[in-house]
């Protein structure tokens, strides 16, 4: 999957979790930029992404992730 394909799936997941279909994500978007992306939503997003992509994030890499682009790269690396 290309970065763009992953990003569009990540966008769909974030929309579903925060309940806002107008959310647009770029590789530079961070949680603070999206209304509703609080700490509980963040965990829900991570769990939903793990389901969606059939993978598991490592705790350390998640803590280092600063924006959507970092998440996309972690997903790509599996």
């Amino acid at each position, binding site marked *: 999957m290309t970065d763009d394909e992953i990003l569009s799936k990540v966008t769909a997941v974030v929309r579903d*979790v925060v*309940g806002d279909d107008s959310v647009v994500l770029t590789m530079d978007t961070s949680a603070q930029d999206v209304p509703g992306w609080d700490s509980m939503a963040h965990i829900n997003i991570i*769990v939903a992404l793990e*389901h969606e992509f059939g993978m598991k994030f490592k705790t350390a890499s998640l803590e280092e992730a600063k924006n959507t682009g970092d998440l996309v790269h972690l997903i790509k690396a599996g």
Partner: protein
Amino acid sequence: MPQSFLENRHEISPAVRSKLSPTLPHGLPVVSRLDFLPRLKPQTIFPQPEDPEFWSKLRHIAGHQLRFTEVLKLDRLIAKISPQAAGLKLKLAILSSATTEHLAAGLRVAGARHNMAIEVYTHAYGSALQELNDPESGLAAFHPDVVLIAFPYPHLFGSGALAKTPGSIRDNLAFASRMLQNLRELAFEKFGCAIIQQTILPTQPPLVGNHEFQLPGAPACLTAELNETLRQQSIDQKFAILAIDEAAAADGLAAWHDRALWHRAKQEITPAAGLAYGEMVLQVIDAQRGRTAKCLVLDLDNTLWGGVIGDDGLDGISLGQGSGVGESFVAFQTYAKHLSERGIILAVCSKNDEENALLPFQKHPEMVLRREDISSFVANWTDKASNLRTIAKHLNIGLDALVFCDDNPFEREQVRDAIPEIRVPELPEDPSFWPETLAAAGYFESISLTADDFSRVAQYRLNAERENLKSSSSNIDDYLRNLQMELKWAAADLVNVERITQLINKTNQFNLTTKRYDLAQVQSMMTNPDSLVLSFRLLDRLGDNGIICIVIGHKSGEELLIDSWLMSCRVLGRGVEKATLGVLAAKAAALGVRQLRGRYVPTDKNKMVAEHYENLGFVAAGENIGGETLWSLDLAEYTMPDLFIRLTQVEQ
């Protein structure tokens, strides 16, 4: 079958996974084991609040195996429901030392599935005790109907040195057990609410392994020991158990607990298991409120045996005989038989000629179920929905007390459409998995089994015999005299308070006001000197019918207000109502009461008692909106009629 998606995933190489990922099960592994409908189709349209059928459509969606994000989406819609539109309303508070806010969505969605609008209260991290003690707390303002206590191992036992001496092991256990008991007692004292105690999730890995038991101070052993203590306490202290430890044993710990999330957010239950968790909690709540089923209705062909008896004949059907399929049907029958032995009524509903349908019961050597195990046997060519109505009528139970098992998806769908109250599990294709599907669905959950549960099936069978006696007696008086009935009554029978609560919550038809009370409320009325809680047990020459009637009254000056009057329909037409009034009048007179006041509040199900008070000689005393009628009886003008029932009081 109950495969853990989390575990399977690691066995798939990334290359293969990228190809497979669109079809990998995104659904929740735990949920797929239950009786949920299949996953939602991608184009499923969620209803909008303006929709007149908003709540029933939400309920329908909630019945499916929802993906994680679908649970969140549905929950946001449930929040828009108007309070009048939803089913029963219930306030649930979770007291925990872990993070639980993320569990609210799954609880509310499971609530919709069970026709309950659930309001969930979770408190700030680590403040359970303060919330209970502070009269100004959010919890106090919320005033829950149900409190769920859910504590993780680390907050009960800490992470200190391993307990090695019997004394220190005992101290550790006593401390943890005392802490939970304290919370339960406080919650009950403050709110008089129903209590659910979650067992301790076995998150602690063994230190030894197979021989862990040789180190009784090991965390895994302390967990098991405390869980055993909680189960024992639940019997005497009357709280319900949420057996999360057994769920983890069945599904694998990873399906319920994500260690990374525990460390990251102190979530003991992973959000991914939210709906399954909600479902488990709702099953217990249903049981606490007596909303569980009483009767398992079974199809025959390809449900109790493989093949079609009418086509394949006695030798052609597959049952036992060492074949995998045949053995799976034997196992399913054995499960049904055991259910009947613990008090679940069995019935048969089959499209068949009756003669063919009976043949295996009479002649097949491997049949586990016998004809006498089946309290209502209906085999004909009428549609199943009509036949299920017949069965409910024959057994004198509500349609919502039926669970219908059929291998045929079309029949299941037809019944669900025609009679939404009947629970129709989505059975997997392979009958090997039916017993655990039924078990996990929790239809027959019960907080406390009473002696009546064990004899109920025999009672229903005896009723059939009474019907025969009735048709052989020349007139009704002969029949009633022949029955040699004895009505044993008790006031404030604390020994049988569970059964009494069960009846209060389960009785729909012969029920004048359909008021529901939980165990704690019934106990409190029993100890109130101005309240009467009368319970009646009927015996006759064919056996014990168990406790069949409850009357609750509250004294107000010289009047007794009859708050509840309900009776099991099994004993209709035997003059029990008249005998009951005799006891009630005597007890009321002893309290200094001059007048009884009754009320009939109509529901969809209790038309049969609309004339109850009139038939007993009460005079009409007005009418309220909604068809509610008021009645009164002057005790000075009442004399008990002659009856074929002997009255005896049970000594307490």
